[in-house]
């Protein structure tokens, strides 16, 4: 008689895989990456390729040197690299892109045990790290290569304009991304396409990005008392991009659905506070990072009561 496999049940498995989920995220990021390249030119593509390649290579080498199993095929390193790149200016110095990617993968992710073990979002943390270290070259945004208003050449981000005063791009330009900013954050329309794809593929729940963005919108509406300002707030900076692609990261957000909602609300609140009262014009990455720290507690508070479970 031939040898039979003996193993624990269940003996069948759903078609879903970690690799497929990561691939879906990459696919969802494509419209944003393409829009960024069109708006800012091929320099943006160079930043994207540098970050993705460095991230994957960094994880590969880390595993090789520490004699750990290969993990780059789960595609999560590529996702981190791409999200980081889309958070950077299209004219970011290449060496800084490399430093940031290595920081995201090695320090934030691999040193904590690799995929699933990090407590902070690698791309958000690396962005904050780079913003602090390389303030001169990374803050603000590059002016778009294509633009509908020739006088808008400064590249000042709408958020900075909102804070300092000056002429704002039109609402349509805001949505399409014809404004200053990071590669991935300018074109809200492309991000929304990715959002719809991820919801259809059931990779993310629709409510996390909506609550995050909605909180900023409502708070701005209350405080600024202007529908126009609130709309600019939503379409400015990395808000929509971060709400869709960074606040929905599985690893660093609560595991429960209610927990994810609280997480999203907290991100919106902190983002608004930083934008309204802080010295930085942009607060999304900080907000996500701060909420990452609270995640385990939110998860505990929102734990489901088991069926028939006694109260403790």
């Amino acid at each position, binding site marked *: 008689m031939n040898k039979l496999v003996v193993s624990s049940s269940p003996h069948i498995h759903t078609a*879903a895989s*970690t690799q497929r989920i990561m691939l879906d995220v990459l696919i969802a990021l494509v419209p944003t990456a393409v829009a960024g390249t069109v708006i800012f030119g091929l320099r943006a593509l160079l930043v994207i390729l540098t970050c993705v390649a460095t991230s994957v290579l960094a994880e590969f080498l880390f595993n090789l040197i520490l004699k750990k199993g290969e993990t780059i095929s*789960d595609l999560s390193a590529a996702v981190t690299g791409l999200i980081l790149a889309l958070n950077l200016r299209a004219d970011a110095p290449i060496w800084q892109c490399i430093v940031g990617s290595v920081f995201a993968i090695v320090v934030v992710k691999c040193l904590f045990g690799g995929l699933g073990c990090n407590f902070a979002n690698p791309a958000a943390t690396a962005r904050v790290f780079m913003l602090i270290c390389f303030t001169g070259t990374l803050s603000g945004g590059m002016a778009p290569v294509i633009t509908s208003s020739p006088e808008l050449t400064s590249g000042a981000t709408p958020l900075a304009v909102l804070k300092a005063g000056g002429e704002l791009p039109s609402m349509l330009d805001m949505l399409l991304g014809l404004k200053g900013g990071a590669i991935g954050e300018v074109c809200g329309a492309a991000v929304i396409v990715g959002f719809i794809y991820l919801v259809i593929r059931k990779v993310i729940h629709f409510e996390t990005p909506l609550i995050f963005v909605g909180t900023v919108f409502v708070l701005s509406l209350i405080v600024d008392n202007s529908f126009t300002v609130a709309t600019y707030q939503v379409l400015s900076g990395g808000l929509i991009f971060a709400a869709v692609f960074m606040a929905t990261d599985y690893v660093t957000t609560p595991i429960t659905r209610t927990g994810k909602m609280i997480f999203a609300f907290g991100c919106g609140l902190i983002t608004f506070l930083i934008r309204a009262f802080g010295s930085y014009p942009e607060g999304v990455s900080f907000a996500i990072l701060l909420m990452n720290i609270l995640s385990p507690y939110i998860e505990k508070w929102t734990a489901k009561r088991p069926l028939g479970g006694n109260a403790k």
Partner: protein
Amino acid sequence: MPRFMLGRTHVPHRKNTAEAPAQRMPAPEQVVILTSQHIGAPATPIVKAGDTVYVGTKIGEASGYVSSPIHSSVSGKVKKIEPHLLSNGRSCMAIIIESDGQMTPDPEIKAPTVENIDDLVSAVRESGLVGLGGAGFPTAVKLDAEKKGLIDQIVINGAECEPYITSDTLTMIAKADKVKAGVEILEKFISAKNIAIGIEANKPECIAKLTEIFADDDKVTVIPLPSTYPQGAEKILIHNTVGRVVPEGKLPADVGCLVMNVTSVAFLAEYLETGMPLVEKCVTVDGSAIKNPMNVICPIGTSIEKLIEFTGGFKSEPGKILYGGPMMGISVYTTEEPIMKNNNAIVAFNKKDAKLPPSRNCIHCGRCVAACPMGLNPTLFARAMKVEDSRERVARLNEAKLMLCMECGCCSFVCPSVRPLVETNRLAKAELRAAQAKK
């Protein structure tokens, strides 16, 4: 009816064998009857090598309150009695009987006289009936709760939520009259006010048939359940049919429920009619390695090998063979293992399907938390098991309510990283039991 239905994992149905009627297989040359085919104490053999037995002759006596007698499933001679290693790693005695091929029923068998609940409990005990849905809990013990006046609701399980398995489906179609007769017996002796029959919506013909035959019975309601897994799990079934919640560490009887599998109910009627104990089972034989998937009525104790041979053998080399369905089934190490009372399927996978994809790191996606019908967080058990200190480990496992896990397999099934979550829970439970025993 509850506000919402629990157990919403979409597993494949693969009910390939629901259409054709079950085929009866001829007596095998020998049968291996295990003394432990149920939850509780193993039966004590009461025959010795060389004894002549008939179909239905009692060969093992129940050895406790939670226990069950066993009966010969063929006529012939007892060859030997020897220890047998079970697929769960434990061992029990096995009575090996050589068949004379005649299948002569025991001449002493006659229908029992049942006039009250005491008679019913002792008759059911003698019949060797155990929960035929898979768990194998002695039915007499369940019925005994009636004597304590606990039961006000009967729930009949026709969910059959495991992929492939259709033996209960065939019972509901081919033996609907027996199901009705069984329900009437329960109505007569159990003081329950209502009887709910839960059937998954993927079996519309069963729902239609039972709704029709119980049309004139006001006590009986046929409840269609969602075609998602695990509708047939006892606690989930009770919740989804009658909206009651069995508390931690309690039994269905504690919330007034008597739960019986639909095939067990049909058997009850047959037994009171003929007095022939539980000696044969309708078993679904299916899976990617099986040439002709079908339902087979075979004597208990038939080897898996002979059973599969009867259906026409393997289509390709088997890589894994299961007692039961793929979600909760136990993999066997050899095809010489016998069919037991609580088996309702043998699923054989080919080499390709025998292995799951390799496991990756947990990505904390929460799919297991969303899938768990009991509302548990499987990641907590996995994390607790990594704690070095054993007391801390036990405390964390208890805090996360490990013992509520029924090992239905939903968490492992949906995990995109193919984490061995159920396996981890089994190991963790063994640790908790050991810690409990030490106290």
